[in-house]
């Protein structure tokens, strides 16, 4: 067995700020609705997650009630703050005691400075759905501004996200957090790039299977005029995650999706034991006469003409992609199981 890397993540923030909610949505298949059932966390809840073949995420969900908090900063201090790879501090935008929240944040930094100076710091300004749309940016910026100054005092750099469980913003934040902890994320990226080059596709995205967080993506810029939503990555995570829940209701599991879209074709399928891949291809423009097709051979333009009449075409293209995925699978399985120090 390859050696596995363990990464300790601290989830901190006032009671009711939404720590357990986000953890349950991202890693335990809860819907946003389901989180209303969650009770306050007693002391610290540990969750060990196998993430990609050889990485274990060790989540410390620290209950935010005052009595527990006091312990974290006194008797449990070294236990809590040792060996931390990332602090995820959740701010509740509705909090009436923002000053106190910031003080707690500073206390965390002070302890990390002492016990885990290499830790990455993430601040989630959470429950953004409760702020009117026009004010969201201001609220977020104001808070981040004060956090950046205090973090700098302990020579930490804080990375911030505005989040809510009611849209895809949560996936963007967590994808960034988790990617910063994957040791071989660069190798994934490199091989995804060559996959995109060889298959001549417009986009390839790699997801972790259970959380559906984006691990890596490559955009081909191949088709002129092909445009994509700038928040598509987190949106796809959110869309597919919700569909996975629908499938679970039928006591079954999502396996693959093939979209014959109006402007693109997309294909989602398993890559390795713990990843899924999505491949996107723009629908090729059909030249209106033979002369201005860029390099279309006679035979291929005949196929294209047929394809234009038959809405169910694209099978052939799909089969090529399927074959390419099959070939790439072995490579990615190897990366996934690379031995880690």
């Amino acid at each position, binding site marked *: 067995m390859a050696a596995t890397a363990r990464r300790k993540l601290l989830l901190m923030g006032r009671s009711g700020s939404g720590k357990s909610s986000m953890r349950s949505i991202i890693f335990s298949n809860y819907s946003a609705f389901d989180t209303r059932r969650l009770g306050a966390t007693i002391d610290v809840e540990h969750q060990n997650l196998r993430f990609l073949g050889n990485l274990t995420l060790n989540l410390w969900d620290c209950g935010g009630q005052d009595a527990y908090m006091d312990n974290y900063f006194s008797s449990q201090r070294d236990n809590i703050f040792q060996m931390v790879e990332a602090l995820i501090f959740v701010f509740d935008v509705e909090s009436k005691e923002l000053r106190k929240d910031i003080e707690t944040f500073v206390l965390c930094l002070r302890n990390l400075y002492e016990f885990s100076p290499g830790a990455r710091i993430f601040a989630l300004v959470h429950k953004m759905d409760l702020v009117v749309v026009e004010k969201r940016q201001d609220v977020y910026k104001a808070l981040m501004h004060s956090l950046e100054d205090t973090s700098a005092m302990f020579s930490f750099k804080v990375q911030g996200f505005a989040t809510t469980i009611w849209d895809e913003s949560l996936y963007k934040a967590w994808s960034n957090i988790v990617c910063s902890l994957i040791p071989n994320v660069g190798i994934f990226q490199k091989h995804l790039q060559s996959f995109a080059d060889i298959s001549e596709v417009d986009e390839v995205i790699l997801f972790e299977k259970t959380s559906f967080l984006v691990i890596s993506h490559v955009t081909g810029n191949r088709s002129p005029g092909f445009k994509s939503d700038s928040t598509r990555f987190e949106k796809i995570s959110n869309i597919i995650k919700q569909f996975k829940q629908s499938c679970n209701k039928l006591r*079954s599991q999502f396996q693959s999706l093939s*979209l014959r879209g109006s402007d693109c074709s997309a294909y989602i399928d398993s890559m390795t034991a713990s990843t899924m891949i999505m491949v996107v291809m723009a629908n090729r423009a059909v030249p209106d006469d033979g002369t201005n097709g860029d390099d279309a051979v006679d035979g291929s333009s005949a196929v294209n003409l047929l394809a234009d009449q038959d809405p169910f075409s694209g099978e052939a293209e799909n089969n090529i992609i399927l074959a390419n995925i099959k070939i790439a699978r072995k490579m990615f399985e190897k990366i996934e199981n690379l031995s880690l120090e």
Partner: protein
Amino acid sequence: MTDDHGPLTEGYDRTPQHSSHHIPKIMMMGLRRCGKSSICQVMFHNMPPLDTLYIESTSSPSTTVFSSFIDFAVVELPGQTNAVDPGNEELERLFTESGALIYVIDSQDEYINSLSNLHSIITRAVEVNPKINIEVFIHKVDGLSEDFRLDAQRDITQRVTDELLDDGLLNVPLSFHLTSIFDHSVYEAFSRVVQKQIPQLATLENLLNVVCQHSGIEKAFLFDIKSKIFVATDSSPMDVATYEICTDFIDITVDMDSLYTIDHSQTPALKAADTAFGNELDGTDPTFNKSKPIGSTTRLNNGLILYLQQMVKGLALVCLMRKESMPKIALVEYNIEFFRNALEQLRLLTV
């Protein structure tokens, strides 16, 4: 000229100008706060159910025009107890123009008051228009336990029919539905209401039966993409779980499709092709520059396959199959294409 490959979802028009005089109507009545506006907003305007908390009370009749396989207008009347004062000509005209009257009862409230209100409305409505379908929505059942729901339905059905019998009204077309905006029940109920308004329903169902039998399809729904109303389904038994996964599948297909677009102004070759095919795309809104009907397929690990294909005018066929049918996919596609053609002709006959 049919806009067979037109915009994926047809817009709904809330303003009554859209010559809503001539299209069939579905009325919605019920006491204040029973949930009429919420149902309309959730069904036809994509409002998230929780947001209905902030809907203001309706003060004058409001109309939503629904444009799908058939066109019809949903007319919501403000909630009031004395709706059927004699001589209310406006109301009588609505009764004659409407194919269905949805009466919404708040099941979380004392429903005695609404039952007497319902009784006077039914009496008046069938007097003016004996063919009007009375559809009772026993609404907000999300707040009731499973047992309690059935008790409420039994009790309400009993009281309403008893009272009508006392008045000697025997053959009122009357149906009861348990509904909530927090799950799929309101969509299913509304689908049943709409289906009764479609003259070609029997033909559609037969067509779907034929397609299913000859293609190894277990269940097929013809959906209105935007509202998730199903216009027709084949005659095999249906369960809510299947309906739910099909509507969710429509959602993800539409959502995924919207993430990537081709800006046609940057691809001159394609623009020329578009006009050559005579599509009425004006190029102002890139999302409407879509010309190809969409489709999607998903596989589940228990061997189930969902297959979606967009049909004419904002309609999609969603089929449930077993993976054993996949080798015959070409046949499935052929039969679905046959269904699409039949659908197009049916539609031509209606307009």
